[in-house]
């Protein structure tokens, strides 16, 4: 009886899913997925393939010439500048990643475990979120009056007599770049970690306590392992965004520091598209390898 009822239910739902039409169940799914496929196909897949092709082309100041040269790659990979730039970009990425991970985890942990009402949680979460929906460039610029030679930090410190003269390296330095990158990207860590922490069964923590675990032991052996997927997703965001950053590095270092994307941007402004394309392919491979490494930790499809 039960089996008959459930087969019937399956049949009805199957029929209705195909919107009352007798067409196969999946046809409607294809139709619904088509706009996404078309948009991503034309504006994402095609451009990537084009870059791959163009990276082997020849060029001069007048235009691009179809060819099959490995010159663009040997040029970029054979240059010391490229390697130094990659090293510099990796340095920024590593520092930003470590800082956003630590800050993001504690902020998310505080929101998830120490705020008692859902309303308050949502309000505080929104307080963290809102700045991230405003302009990145404005948020970069906003450091100028704070960190500048006569900015807030310097004038306060000199007035208090802590330092004899303004610190020069606050703005337009690697310090400023990392500070701004952390400022711009921490939410990408907070959100996924908060999301995973909220889904931890509180009974697990009670159980650990009952078994005699101290606060740190609960954190280290229960909460942290369960937060890993969120940390992985956050890391993917932060790593890919920072690896490809050019504006923060340019604005906050005052043009004194370089990143891979900034190098590409300069090549583009000189219309050296094939050279930029070769760089793009190398950068893409590096970024995808980093993502693949992070994905070994977590299956994101399960986490949504």
């Amino acid at each position, binding site marked *: 009886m039960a089996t008959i009822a459930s087969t019937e239910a399956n049949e009805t739902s199957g029929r209705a899913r195909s*919107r009352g039409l007798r067409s196969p169940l999946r046809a409607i799914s294809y139709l*619904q997925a088509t706009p996404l496929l078309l948009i991503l196909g034309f504006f994402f897949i095609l451009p990537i393939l084009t870059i791959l092709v163009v990276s082997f082309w020849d060029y001069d100041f007048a235009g691009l010439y179809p060819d099959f040269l490995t010159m663009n790659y040997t040029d970029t990979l054979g240059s010391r500048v490229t390697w130094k730039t990659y090293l510099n970009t990796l340095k920024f990425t590593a520092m930003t990643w470590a800082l956003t991970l630590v800050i993001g985890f504690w*902020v998310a942990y505080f929101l998830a475990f120490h705020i008692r009402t859902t309303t308050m949680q949502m309000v505080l979460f929104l*307080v963290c979120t809102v700045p991230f929906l405003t302009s990145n460039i404005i948020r970069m610029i*906003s450091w100028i*009056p704070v960190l500048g030679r006569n900015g807030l930090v310097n004038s306060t410190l000199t007035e208090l007599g802590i330092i004899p003269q303004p610190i020069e390296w606050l703005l337009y330095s690697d310090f400023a770049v990392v500070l701004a990158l952390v400022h711009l990207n921490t939410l990408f860590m907070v959100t996924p970690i908060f999301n995973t922490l909220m889904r931890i069964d509180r009974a697990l923590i009670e159980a650990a306590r009952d078994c005699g675990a101290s*606060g740190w032991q609960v954190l280290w052996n229960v909460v942290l392992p369960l937060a890993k997927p969120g940390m992985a997703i956050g890391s993917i965001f932060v790593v890919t965004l920072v690896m490809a950053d050019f504006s923060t590095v340019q604005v906050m270092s005052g043009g004194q520091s370089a990143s891979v994307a900034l190098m590409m941007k300069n090549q*583009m402004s000189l219309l050296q598209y094939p050279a930029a394309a070769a760089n793009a392919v190398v950068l893409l491979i590096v*970024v995808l390898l980093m993502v693949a490494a992070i994905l070994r930790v977590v299956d994101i499809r399960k986490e949504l």
Partner: protein
Amino acid sequence: MNHERRGKEFYVLAAFFALFVLFLYGPLSAVLMLSFQGPDGGLTFPLNGVSLHWFYNLFEKQAVGDFGASFRRSFTLGLMVMVVNVIVALLAGLAFRHRFRGSTALFYMTVASLVVPSIIISLGIGVVFQQFGLKLAWYSSGFGAHLTWTLPFGVLIMFAVFNRFSPAYEEAARDLGATAWQTFRHVVLPMIAPSLIGVGLFGFTLSYDEFARTLMTSGTYNTLPLEIYGMTTNVTTPVLYALGTVTTLFSFTIILAALAVILVLRRRQARTS
């Protein structure tokens, strides 16, 4: 954990959180204050009198590029992206409720669109349009470039929403004789409406602030973020802050309006159910 008295850990973390919020909002509020700088004031504190001088300056056409026109372009583009984002993400979300051939590939393609560096997509679309002899413009190539950034967010949100969506409601509607369209229109749509507004908000604000993907794809006319980006290198007066204040207040208004609508929808749902 929730039932105990608040210990030292709470206060330490609360202080940390407060510092984080100060870190987020402190610099922004400095910009806000300095945009009211007097006519003789500079880019840093102290305030040299209080005036609306730099706001007037902003709206004089010759002073700083063409702020009004670039704002209109960014606003229109944001609306276009918002509408397409909601529709396409909703359809894709519905499609992903069932496994179909290539659904995993399409899903990973969507995620990849988020992960691939913006500047690479920007360069790629620029070269594609050039090679096909198409005209680069903010409403064609720029529009597409923005969608590659906003759609993954939209699709992932819808994916998460439908993962938690119980089919029981639809089955109940069907048992009561509703057609597929009626089920969607009167049962599914009202339930996911708040999320759709979220998707729309993301679409608009991400597009309105986007510039890495617009860099090579906007054609002749700049969008607002590109205009501001250009200004960072050559404008050395507080008019930059005035512009920052205006765009930030605009973003805040949009966000608050969307949140208000979401709240109202939630309330109405709570009342009817």
